[in-house]
């Protein structure tokens, strides 16, 4: 996933946002959801945040000039919104922790044959492993290895230098390897 291959999408969005947005969102949503799902503890939060990410993306894009849209690094830019929402959600949770958490992953089994929805136990185990990482490491590892985002895009999304992101991924992976499933 590089910005070069996505350039036609930029042009479509710049030319006719309303027409191109639904298709662009459908192309992005699995990546955004997969990443957000590992940055927040519950599927319900991940669903809300993914939804909110695209609503904010649309509202922002409708205020941009076509030139600005053409020059956007869309994956990095969209992830900036998603990462911020995940960070805000974490803040809200620590103030007002939820007592009952429904696992809605079970309702969303329209996955292809090679993609199995995780069980509640597996989800909890991943949450436990990932929560040992610092927030920066967790974000970097998830965006790099769950979403498959290039370092450049992660740097843009998190507002950190590319070198720092690489270090975060490296150290994060090392911490994860200490805790095997």
């Amino acid at each position, binding site marked *: 996933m590089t910005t070069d291959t996505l350039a036609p999408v930029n042009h479509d969005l710049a030319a006719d946002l*309303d027409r191109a*947005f*639904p298709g662009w*969102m*459908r192309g992005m*949503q*699995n*990546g*955004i*959801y*997969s990443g957000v*799902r*590992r940055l927040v503890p519950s*599927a319900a939060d991940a*669903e809300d945040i*993914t*939804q909110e990410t*695209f*609503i904010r993306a*649309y*509202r922002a894009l409708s205020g941009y000039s076509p030139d600005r849209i053409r020059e956007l690094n869309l994956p990095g830019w969209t992830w900036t919104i998603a990462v911020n929402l995940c960070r805000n959600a974490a803040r809200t949770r620590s103030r007002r922790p939820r007592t009952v958490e429904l696992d*809605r992953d079970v*309702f*969303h089994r*329209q*996955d*292809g044959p090679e*993609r199995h*929805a*995780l069980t509640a136990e597996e989800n909890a185990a*991943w949450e436990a492993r990932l929560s040992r990482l610092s927030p920066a490491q967790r974000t970097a*590892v*998830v965006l790099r*290895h*769950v*979403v*498959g985002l290039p370092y450049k895009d992660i740097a843009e999304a998190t507002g950190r230098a590319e070198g720092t992101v690489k270090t975060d991924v490296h150290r994060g*992976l090392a911490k*994860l*390897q200490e805790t095997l*499933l």
Partner: protein
Amino acid sequence: MSTERELAALATTAPETIAPAVLLETGLADGYLAYAGPAGPMFVSFNARGISSLTLGTDPEAFEEKFVELFGRPAVPVKALPKRLGRALEKTLETGRIGSLPIDWDGMSEFQQAVLRKTAEILPGEVRPYSWIAREIGKPKAVRAVGTALARNPIPIVVPCHRVVRNDGNLGNYYYGTDVKRAVLESEGLDVDTLEDLSTRGVRLTGSDTTHIFCNPTCRDARRTTDRHLVEFRSEAEARAAGYRPCKHCRPAAA
């Protein structure tokens, strides 16, 4: 399995509910749901501006297809109408009047809007001819265009295009067929048999010999006239020649 591969295997599919929710929230799609209406099962669609369409039918896929074709944007299924809209729609279907129900007039030409807004003034239990609409909106020669605008009414029942009939009083065409038109009119209290009898006998207007006022035959004032005092006319000229003036409520002729 390496940690990297374990992480890559966490890539999953987004819940199917996300995209529709976003499209709805951003106004890129309308919401719709199945609804039991006076003319049978139907689909109602809406957006931030109000009710955008009403379609008789039971097949959601066929509805969605037709919606995209007509409006150029998708309609996504929702569980319920927004509360205020739901209450207003219920009231409209019950009373036969638009009242405070918000309608999405966007995407309609100025002419079609004028035709449909005028149509919405016709009270349940009454009908008006196409020529009446044309005259009332200040385009007396556009009778045919009025018919086209009504045939393309995206919100039948709510915008009561079934209350517009041919100039000779014949029920005329309806998107869902004349039988449905007749049934809806009868459910609103209109005596369709009497209307058709007048039509076949060439009666276009009725008057009262006590007030010397002439009306559209279904005007609520005309219906109050007792048979003994009811006078029938074949044309406006005939009524005027007899010394009658047009009713100010149903305006059967230019004043």
